[in-house]
């Protein structure tokens, strides 16, 4: 199957310098979707913590694959409410940088109607929105028309201190396996082919067949995530809209148990880390709670950086 982002590869006869110049001259392009929920909005600092789903094929080409969490953008409350409407993701455009033949993202922009907002990574926590849909974009772009996004070529592993259960592959389409469902369990497996596809959900309440392209929601995926199989990623959730002509998810990024109320934040090496605040809160002895939080904060920020 063809790859959409092959053009980001350095060819064998492509000198590093030429490759760098070619990449550094590129305009920004669409590489993922940003999801917003007002629960992630901080009025005090007018900051929105953003949950992102990246194109897996694109992500696998970066030196460090981008995590789902850890990103922030600043906007006023009114804009935040606008972004949170509709539950659909907004396209994220990235500007690439190549250095000695290696690929990095040097800028992130989220587009919403006629607005273009800067987004940046600071490792902040984000609660994944309950519903995650990929909305059909008005803007033509490669990522959007990529019907089959294959699993990442290279597995993306967690950082050195990330438990292995959070290892991931970065890809948001392709073969997948859905293992649980909020309103009754179902199991689904299979893979979509470009342009057409049928799917069947085996379970107590939902059976589904059809083409997976629709006018309103081209890619849809339900929401409150639960456990995952490491290989392909898992999603489960309640479908808010009764009709959409395709369901699909992304598998990737993570596995492991995941509960309502969990947070995802950007870990190292492009893997999002999850914490379950409630569980953590419940387990920690009172006298230690403060220490653990201080520890985590210090670890994430480092210390003495102002001494340089």
């Amino acid at each position, binding site marked *: 199957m063809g790859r959409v982002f092959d053009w980001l590869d350095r060819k064998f006869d492509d000198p590093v310098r030429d490759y760098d110049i070619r990449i550094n001259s590129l305009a920004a392009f669409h590489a993922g979707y940003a999801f917003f929920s007002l629960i992630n909005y901080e009025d005090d600092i007018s900051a929105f913590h953003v949950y992102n789903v990246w194109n897996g094929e694109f992500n696998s080409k970066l*030196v*460090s694959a*981008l*995590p789902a969490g*850890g990103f922030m953008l600043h906007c006023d409350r009114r804009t935040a409410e606008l972004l949170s409407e509709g539950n659909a993701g907004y396209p994220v455009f990235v500007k690439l*940088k190549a*250095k*000695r033949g*290696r690929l*990095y*993202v*040097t*800028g992130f922009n989220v587009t919403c109607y006629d607005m273009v907002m800067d987004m*940046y*990574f*600071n*490792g902040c926590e984000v609660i994944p929105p309950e519903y995650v849909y990929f909305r059909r974009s008005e803007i033509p772009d490669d990522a959007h028309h990529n019907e089959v996004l294959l699993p990442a070529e*290279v*597995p*993306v*592993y*967690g*950082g*050195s*201190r*990330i*438990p*292995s*259960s959070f*290892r991931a592959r970065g890809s948001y389409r392709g073969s997948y396996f859905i293992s649980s469902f909020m309103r009754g369990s179902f199991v689904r497996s299979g893979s979509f082919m470009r342009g057409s596809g049928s799917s069947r959900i085996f379970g107590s309440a939902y059976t589904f067949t059809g083409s997976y392209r629709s006018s309103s929601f081209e890619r849809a995926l339900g929401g409150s995530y639960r456990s995952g199989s490491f290989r392909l990623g898992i999603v489960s959730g309640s479908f808010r809209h009764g009709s959409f002509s395709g369901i699909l998810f992304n598998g990737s990024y993570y596995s492991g148990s995941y509960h309502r109320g969990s947070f995802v934040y*950007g*870990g*190292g*090496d*492009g893997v999002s880390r999850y914490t379950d605040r409630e569980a953590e809160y419940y*387990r920690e002895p009172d006298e*230690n709670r403060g*220490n*653990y939080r*201080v*520890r985590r904060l*210090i*670890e*994430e*920020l*480092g*210390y*003495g*950086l102002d*001494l*340089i």
Partner: protein
Amino acid sequence: MKGFYSLWTAPYFAKGGGEFHLEDYEIATLLLSVAAYQAYNGETRMYADDAACAYLKAEGMEDIFDRGVVRIEVPDDIDPLVYWAAGKMVALKAEEAPSVMIDTDLIIWKNIEKELKDAYVKVIHREELNPEIYPDPGSFAMKEGYEFPKSWDFKVLPANTALLYIADQDLKDRYTCESLRFMQMSEHTDDNLCHMVFAEQRILPMCAAAKGYGVEAFCSDMWKLREQSLFTHIWGHKSVFRFNMDERRAFCRRCIKRLASEFPMMYVKAREIKELEEYLNA
């Protein structure tokens, strides 16, 4: 007081990384760390495996260590994905005590000899026994024949070894030997946190306690790390540099500026390193 660093590339390759490289912010931090250590404390050495040695040579960084670069070989039966810091243990085993082991992302800004006086073992700080990170050792699946030494007290608090000073050769040998033995004798696992920190951070204070030594810490409380003026530790902030190019650029420029103003010899070396090229003319 002599100090040393280590670079082990096997975890990088095991994760599917291509040609080994250090990112610009890693190089800038290392240069500053080495320069500051040499200026305030003493000679430095790098322990590196073959790929790291080749990389340091190719980048022109081989001669920044005044005690040279020494090759290390980590035993094949240690899983680099689980025990990603095993290189540190092998380096420590090869180094003669007393010595200071320094992580490549840690900078020591002052002379620490006074602080090391009278200490047998000194680390940057102690850790809480959080059961999620430091579970009951009985939960580790070990190969047949392995037993935890009876002298170990599992209630002893772990020690963070981003910086580690060991004065006693016997203790150092015992620690590295037990740590590597644990790595080699553990059954296959996908966990790359609890096993690693047990081998690195718990075995040390338990071995020390068994010998009757206390483990001292530069910072008695975690929160004091934010107030101290002795160390810079990039630690988890590397993930921000990984995905935030503005921060990365600002950080690298700050490092280069500091090198230029305070460590001119190292600045000359920095000028020859291609990875830092874009910051030198900024």
